[in-house]
């Protein structure tokens, strides 16, 4: 198995706060990795660092063996990394259909000027139906439930045609039925299109059936890794969660 995404000794400090402390882990090709850790342990920070929202103080990020630490965010997305936000960030003034359209727009200005605005409508429609939003294309974000907003986030990530998707608390605030649907969708995407996922979730019940392997971090540091069942019984993990 080759490593698709690799985080090598990443340290990130915000003033005096060490958010990530020499953190290393990797995602293998064809794998779904769960990322666990108590509140404030650095899960979202490592996602932000992988996406290039800010540079790490030290360490490297590798994707398909290539060092992407210094690349801008849009470049990483085009290489095949996508993410969803913990708090959904829909574009407030447009319908969810148009929101997803941003992910399909050509990065070239010339092609944007000459191409048809409706060129990718079929693709957008298919993705929105895929995530379970049929019949809601022309709705605005303020009309949607949290569950649907998370689906929009997922649709936007999938529309960038990714190789790996970083899912930040994709199950938070969802009903059991909604969790099941999203879980099914992720499995299907994995089987049919070979997508990899890194899933951050507080909901261990939702995480358990989905992930192949779990990495646990606390205070920005690597604590443990292994299959889910083994991890939940790990002494160090218990200590991190329960003190």
């Amino acid at each position, binding site marked *: 198995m080759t490593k698709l995404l690799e985080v090598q000794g990443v340290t990130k400090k915000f003033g005096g706060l060490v958010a990530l402390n020499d953190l290393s882990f990797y995602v293998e090709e064809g794998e779904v990795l769960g990322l666990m850790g108590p509140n404030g342990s650095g899960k979202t920070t490592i996602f932000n660092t992988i*996406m290039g*929202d800010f540079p790490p103080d030290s360490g490297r990020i590798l994707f398909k063996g290539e060092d992407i630490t210094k690349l*801008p*965010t*849009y*470049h990483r*997305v*085009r290489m095949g990394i*996508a*993410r969803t*936000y913990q708090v959904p*960030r829909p*574009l*407030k*003034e*447009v319908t969810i259909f*148009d929101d997803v*359209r*941003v*992910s399909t*727009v*050509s*990065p070239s*200005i010339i092609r*944007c*000027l*000459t*191409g048809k*605005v409706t060129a990718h409508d079929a693709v957008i429609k298919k993705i929105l139906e895929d995530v379970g939003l049929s019949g809601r294309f022309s709705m605005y974000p303020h009309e949607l439930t949290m569950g649907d907003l998370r689906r929009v986030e997922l649709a*936007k990530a999938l*529309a*960038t045609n990714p190789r790996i998707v970083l899912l930040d608390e994709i199950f938070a605030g969802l009903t059991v039925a909604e969790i099941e649907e999203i879980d099914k969708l992720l499995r299907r995407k994995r089987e049919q299109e070979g997508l990899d996922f890194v899933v951050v979730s507080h909901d261990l019940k939702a995480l358990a059936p989905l992930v192949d392997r779990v990495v646990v971090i606390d205070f920005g540091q690597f604590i443990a890794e292994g299959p889910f069942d083994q991890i939940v019984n790990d002494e160090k993990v218990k200590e991190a969660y329960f003190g």
Partner: protein
Amino acid sequence: MIRRLRWWLIAIAVMCVLPLFVPMSITRLLVMAAYLAIFAMSWDMMSGYTGYVSFGHPFLIGVAAYVSAFLSHQEGFQPPHIVLPLYITIPLGVAAAVGGGMLFFLPSMRVRGPYFSLVSLAFMEILHRLIIAIRPEYTGGDRGLPALPAVVTGAVPNYYLALGLMFAVAIGLWFVTRSDVGYVLKTIRMDEDVVEASGISTYKFKRFAFILSAATAGLGGVFYTHYLQSLGPRWAFSATFLLDIIIAAVIGGMGTITGPIFGGYFLTFILEYLRPYLFGQWRLFAYALAAIFIVIYRPKGFYGIAQDVRGWFQRRRIRGEV
């Protein structure tokens, strides 16, 4: 297509025959309005779409106007001074606006936040001081440059020139903003990080919008100064001129291109007729009031109001048919 554009075609037709029916003073006012509309569209292309508010459009307009005026000016310089024809100085002026803008404004656009606005405001003031203080024998200093050559003479030919320019700019910017480029720029205003995370280099699109905006501002500035046949730092770099541009775009409707045209005409005429009652600081006060009112109640300006009215008529028609 014709059906959709019928109101525009009617408006263009009316505008074309208008100078035959109105007195000369109104024609002159219409010329001013057309130039203000060009400046407002230029501002809208950058600030109305991306949300990066420019306080530096007078800088872009001024650079273009000064370059063309300086190179085509015939009197008052020590030799050796080359006098170039307008068909050379006008493109040079526009190029100077784009070049100067890219040199001084673009770096601040890489950073999110109000830095672009602050930098653009600072450079407008810096250029103002420089023009007054450095080499006044060349720039005309505080008095400016008088007796510039004109592109065409007379109110009516100038009216058609200004109108033609305005429509050319409007059509050009309209096509850009109705393409995916306009869409990306609008989404940048809503949430730039999210657009970046969609795989789009937001800086590239912002830069494109800025270049278009600067070129339009430069084009308007050059033709405007040759229409006035004089150029003074006092009008070119004043806060009032800046506010005229921004308010015209805001009351017309930001992020619409067509709105600012209407804003330009409306503002020019309302100011003219209110002149006896509103002078000096009161004008700025009225601006502030109008801007606050519009931003709170009608963020899409006249464009939004027009859309509401159209929607109302359409609904009524549908109800009538049922």
